[in-house]
């Protein structure tokens, strides 16, 4: 089943944003991840879901702006995990899935623009730092992705412009 329940509310999580939800009717969505990466988290026991939409690998000591708290992989993941814990999720139970990091501006520019690849690496490292191994990943390639997590079920789906939603 790929379609969310009809009464579902889709919450768009824009560039550099993150969202936490305990509402089973909510679907958290990161639309059109190019080199950006979406990180979805779900605690099946407390039924808390979270999604972050990361733009760049590292804050390099800079403070993330208030309007884009999840702009950077390192500080964004720290904040995502903190907010999840505050909402009652247990870090040990979290099911974490990662999608995005594509090179959408064509093969000629893929070598030059390695942001997607660097984002994926930074996220892997930061999750590892927190003792978390992603349960599933769909990163790299040349196509943009939309990632969504259904808070009611914890199911996560990825779709591209060319393919329908597949469960991740």
């Amino acid at each position, binding site marked *: 089943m790929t379609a969310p329940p009809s009464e579902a509310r889709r919450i768009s999580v824009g*560039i550099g944003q993150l969202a936490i939800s305990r509402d089973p009717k909510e679907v958290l969505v990161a639309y059109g991840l190019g080199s950006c990466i979406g990180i979805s988290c779900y605690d099946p026991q407390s039924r808390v879901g979270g999604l972050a939409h990361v733009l760049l690998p590292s804050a390099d000591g800079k403070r993330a702006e208030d309007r884009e708290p999840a702009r950077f992989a390192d500080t964004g993941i720290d904040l995502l995990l903190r907010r999840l814990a505050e909402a009652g999720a247990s870090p040990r139970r979290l099911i974490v899935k990662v999608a995005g990091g594509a090179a959408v501006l064509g093969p000629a520019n893929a070598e030059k623009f390695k*942001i997607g690849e660097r984002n994926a690496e930074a996220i892997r490292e930061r999750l590892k730092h927190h003792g978390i191994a992603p349960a599933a990943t769909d990163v790299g390639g040349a196509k943009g992705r939309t990632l969504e997590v259904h808070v009611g079920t914890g199911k996560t789906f990825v779709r591209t412009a060319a393919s329908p939603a597949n469960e991740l």
Partner: protein
Amino acid sequence: MAQEALVQMLTSVSRDGAVRAGRGLSGLMGQEISIHVPNVRIGTKADACDAVGGEESLVLGAYLSISGDITGHVMLLFPVARALQCVDLMCGQPSGTTVEPGELAESAIGELGNIVGSAFVNALADDLNLILHPSPPTIIHDMAIALVQSVYAEVLSQGGDVVMMDAVFEDEKGRTAGLLIVAPDPGSIERLIKVAA
């Protein structure tokens, strides 16, 4: 330079470029194309793709990088149906002949990106007395926000803020005929301010 003054300067600099790019598009599409005054914005904005149907809408277009005295990025995006109409016009086929993007369509869109993107870059070079080289076009076919976001990331990863110019082209019926997006790299902003002063 205050942000407001920077925006004003870039708006004026990009107006001529957008007009010339629109003229190129108009010639290729065989109809009058009007150009909204380019919108210059600082920072990432979720509504950058509204003109082509919103964040997740599928677009077909071309990407060019700028090198030379300044460096940056140029993207020309079309809603897919509109891009395919352009292809038919350019190839002298009845409208509706091309129903999906294939090799011929991509080659025509590349040419379109080349003409429209280069028109903008050349106008910028002429007006500011800079030497600029547009790269050959790369065909892009994806969700609009994925493309815009990747340019944001590329610019922001160099430090500084993203300054993006976008100009919407409209046909005689007021429908979006294309969206031109230009973003200089942060290291080129100082240079732009200097030569425009």
